[in-house]
């Protein structure tokens, strides 16, 4: 026998289900009067530093249909490349920027929308800068464990070419699934869950 390491097991994930809006965006889901506003619906205010952008997109299933019951969260650095988190040790992030946002996909056409700013570059573990990116987390009915991915910018070709995560993608054409379409300030990021255009999802 050897010593027991004593670690606990992580609580297992379960799907968010079709009624995720009740808990996470109740006002959007038609439950008003409990919370003043839906958490994560506003990332910026009029004092936020950095170039304003909008990111829209859809989450598309293996039959090509957009999910109308998904919930997306994003997490990103501020314009100076600092995260608004207690674990950020490099300096104080812009107090007028949350860095975190949440959007349901529309019941009509499945579109999600984030009004945010373009993030600055943040370092990889070896100090090299990663290309500007936004972290995405997707949950929905039929998704048993939240899917992590990243969105990169189409107008950052030089930075993208040296990004350590993009460089790790063995099949080069798949790296394109992480680069948004559209152009500044309106970017479009469609997420394909399955099939030919399947988005690269991350085990991070």
């Amino acid at each position: 026998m050897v010593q027991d390491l004593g670690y606990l097991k992580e609580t297992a994930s379960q799907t968010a289900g079709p009624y995720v809006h009740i808990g996470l965006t109740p006002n959007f889901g038609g439950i008003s009067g409990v919370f003043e506003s839906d958490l994560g619906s506003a990332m910026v205010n009029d004092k936020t530093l950095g170039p304003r952008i909008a990111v829209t997109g859809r989450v598309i299933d293996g039959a090509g249909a957009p999910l109308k019951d998904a919930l997306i969260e994003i997490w990103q650095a501020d314009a100076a490349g600092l995260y608004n988190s207690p674990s950020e040790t490099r300096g104080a992030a812009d107090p007028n920027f949350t860095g975190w946002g949440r959007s349901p996909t529309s019941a009509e056409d499945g579109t999600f929308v984030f009004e945010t700013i373009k993030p600055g570059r943040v370092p990889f573990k070896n100090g090299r800068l990663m290309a500007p990116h936004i972290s995405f987390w997707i949950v929905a009915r039929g998704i048993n464990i939240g899917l992590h991915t990243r969105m990169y910018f189409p107008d950052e070709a030089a930075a993208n070419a040296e990004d350590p995560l993009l460089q790790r993608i063995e099949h080069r054409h798949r790296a394109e699934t992480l680069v948004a379409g559209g152009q500044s300030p309106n970017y479009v990021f469609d997420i394909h869950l399955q099939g030919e255009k399947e988005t690269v999802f991350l085990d991070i």
Partner: protein
Amino acid sequence: MSETENRKRETGAFFQRDRDWHPPAFAPGYKTSVLRSPRKALLSLDNTISEITGPVFGHSMLGELDNDLIHNFATPGESAIGERIIVHGRVLDERGRPVAGALLEFWQANAGGRYRHKKESYLAPLDPNFGGCGRAITDENGYYGFRTIRPGAYPWPNGVNDWRPAHIHFSVFGHGFAQRLITQMYFEGDPMIWKCPIVGTIPDRRAIEQLIASLDWANTIPMDARAYKFDIVLRGRRSTFFENRLEGN
């Protein structure tokens, strides 16, 4: 955020997820997962600062009734119908350390198994005094608690005669975006748990048992509400003793 400000900042990468413990993406017994599951392998990457960091929410965002689902949607003086319960527990990480300042959001059906949602068409009636959403933030020792009514089971169109066990959905933020978790809590002794295709997406019986809240007789309030205890474990962090700082020095 005041509880966390005086503590040593946690900056380590998270323990790798045990994806044999979690449900797989593709689990055909749960039919919707068939077209909503990636078929290509996930790209593995040790955490960068983008995953180690995450939003933290202050207690100041909470309203007085945010953790009281019996009253937070009810007409003043009235309350939701159903079995009154307290659900409480701790949020810990895999190292057994309390996760302070963790935001939990929860949602559920009413006592008859009916959700307050426009896409829900189950014939059981809505309760005019029950909305079904709440939230809480853990204290410095990782404790949370809320008051609600025990949700009912409800049928869903998967198999011809599939019913969900009574459950409460939980969304949990730790301190890093890579800890983000959504799960479901079940109730001790419910025979429906072992018939459910969504529960059945989890391959390991011990992982299912970890989602079943225990009846907590010690904390049951006489003549008022029974208590259930539900602890949640988030990913632990590696110690940073032997790692270069993220800045690369």
